[in-house]
């Protein structure tokens, strides 16, 4: 509707941009699976999380993309890296799993991926391509404008304001609960990580 006119210029970019970021995300994820060094895994994870953040942009969720970048890439990942450093005499140490078990794990992962992917594709097919293979917001728009990339322009359609209204309205209680949870986590994490004093004093040699 509103966004229909501007979309055409950007449309050709969409598929390859999607494949680019999706590809990075997938490669990163595969790297996490296949790598045996924890630091490398962390770096691969970084790529994946970052690419997913970009994909959120395509999905008209730029606020979420920002959160993804800030909380995940900036917060969680750094936390993980800290964890790696704190818990490892040698950050590049390998804790490997025997090959048969690894194969089994990969097999199960592959089976799950195939199964869920298959279900997803079948679901979309069963719902009918016309209705659901294009963003529903612009389903009524002329066919040539039904490009994914239009969503980038869709901030005025649902933006931060919508999110804010929802957070303080419909989702107020969960928001409060999440806040309490974070408090609990903060205290709990501090307590657990500190450990019992006796342990520290007895095992003083430990870092």
């Amino acid at each position: 509707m509103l966004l229909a006119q501007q979309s055409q210029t950007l449309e050709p970019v969409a598929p390859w941009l999607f494949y680019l970021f999706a590809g990075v995300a997938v490669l990163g994820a595969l790297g996490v699976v296949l790598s045996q060094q924890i630091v490398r895994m962390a770096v691969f994870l970084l790529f994946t999380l970052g690419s997913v953040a970009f994909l959120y942009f395509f999905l008209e969720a730029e606020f979420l993309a920002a959160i993804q970048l800030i909380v995940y890439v900036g917060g969680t990942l750094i936390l993980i890296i800290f964890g790696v450093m704190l818990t490892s005499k040698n950050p590049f140490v390998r804790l490997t799993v025997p090959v048969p078990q690894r194969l089994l794990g990969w097999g199960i992962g592959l089976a799950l991926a195939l199964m869920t992917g298959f279900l997803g594709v079948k679901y979309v097919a069963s719902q009918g391509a016309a209705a659901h293979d294009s963003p529903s917001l612009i389903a009524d728009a002329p066919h040539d404008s039904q490009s994914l990339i239009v969503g980038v322009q869709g901030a005025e359609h649902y933006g931060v304001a919508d999110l804010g209204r929802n957070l303080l309205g419909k989702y107020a209680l969960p928001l409060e609960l999440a806040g309490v949870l974070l408090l609990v986590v903060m205290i709990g994490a501090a307590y657990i990580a500190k450990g019992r004093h006796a342990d520290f004093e007895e095992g003083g040699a430990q870092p």
Partner: protein
Amino acid sequence: MIGLSHFLALSAILFGCGAATILTKRNAIGILMGVELILNAANVNLVAFNLYNWAGEAVAQGAAPAVDGLMFAMFIIVLAAAEAAIALAIFLNFYNHFSTIDIERARMLRG
């Protein structure tokens, strides 16, 4: 043209990778990474469905576009962060106790 199914496929791959990671790592932090991957896969799904299905349906019924998918994703990110913090705290404690982060050693609770 990129459609819902593409995102679902991506999410499936991420989910599979996450599952495989959990199953093939002995390092507890590695397992945590696998969990993060799975959560991300779920987020991609939620956001994609929100755009392709739910938002439009709400508009069609005359309401404001729905953002429930995004809300869920946001909460998930928050909870993931919290979970990571707790998990890392536990791992630190575990490390203090066993001098290793190998979860094979974590079998004190077995029946």
